[in-house]
């Protein structure tokens, strides 16, 4: 009888372990960049190639960096969420490995919520930010330190429960 109890116990423990494993998302790799200064970049603007923008230009402000591309369907899915978020905090777009002639009409079609968008055609800055699946969203504080990274499309839930409270807290 005791043996049966043990077997049942081990079986249930295994089930619990596997069930917990199923709720984890293997695609969400913790970023070593959280808590570190946002990597430096100086990139041309999507809309005005002769002008450049650097992450340093945002020092003193809490802001959000959103990596997107016109070839990325999940970016279209999260676009309304980013648009809503951009009403509460400055959002800078990083157009990743895209072509101007595709990216500009995409913004025209879907609306442009970004304060400005930088153009990273080679994806080199993406590598510095540890980007491996567009879209990705970073919250950066006044001192230029990355405080949060969201991988994949920003859900309304993640925006309301994580990004917005964090932005509010950092802006205080």
């Amino acid at each position, binding site marked *: 009888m005791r043996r049966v109890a043990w077997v049942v116990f081990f079986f249930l423990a295994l089930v619990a372990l596997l069930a917990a494993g199923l709720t984890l998302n293997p695609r969400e*790799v*913790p*970023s*070593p960049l959280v808590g570190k200064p946002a990597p430096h970049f100086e990139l041309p603007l999507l809309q005005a190639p002769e002008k450049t923008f650097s992450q340093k230009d945002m020092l003193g402000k809490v802001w959000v960096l959103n990596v997107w591309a016109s070839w990325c369907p999940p970016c279209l899915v999260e676009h309304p969420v980013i648009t809503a978020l951009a009403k509460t905090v400055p959002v800078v777009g990083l157009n990743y490995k895209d072509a101007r002639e595709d990216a500009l009409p995409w913004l025209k079609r879907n609306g442009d919520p970004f304060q400005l968008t930088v153009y990273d055609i080679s994806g*080199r800055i993406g*590598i*510095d930010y540890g980007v*491996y*699946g567009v879209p990705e969203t970073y919250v950066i504080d006044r001192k230029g330190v990355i405080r949060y990274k969201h991988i994949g499309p920003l859900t309304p839930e993640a925006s309301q429960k994580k990004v917005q409270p964090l932005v509010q807290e950092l802006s205080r």
Partner: protein
Amino acid sequence: MRKLLLLVAFLSTPVFSEDANLEKRVTGLAHELRCLVCQNQTIADSNAPLAVDLRNQIREQLAAGKSEGDVIDFMVARYGDFVLYRPPLKASTVLLWAGPFLFLLFGIWFLIRRVRKQAIPERQLSEAERARAAKLLE
């Protein structure tokens, strides 16, 4: 003409072998790094655009004189330990490395316990059994 061709071949050989050497180092490193887009492949095996970019990044850095260790540090700083196909031994990964041995120890302990429990105490034959055995052997 033939001499000229030979000369060209001779002159281009060292350059070629240097390239081949670099490629070998790039491939060697690429086999150590995980492709984050297709997580069960190395960036050497994967043709995802990011894997191609990262291979180019490795090539650029090695060509610029950086060491293998420098390139690994560069990748870990951006993508974390997960990018390494061989996880490092750290406080957070101790269970990963020691786990199989713990299971082995548990198995041995369990086995010893089972075997001890099952050991049958030696039993002397009774007189009647002895007589029966002797009769059978006759």
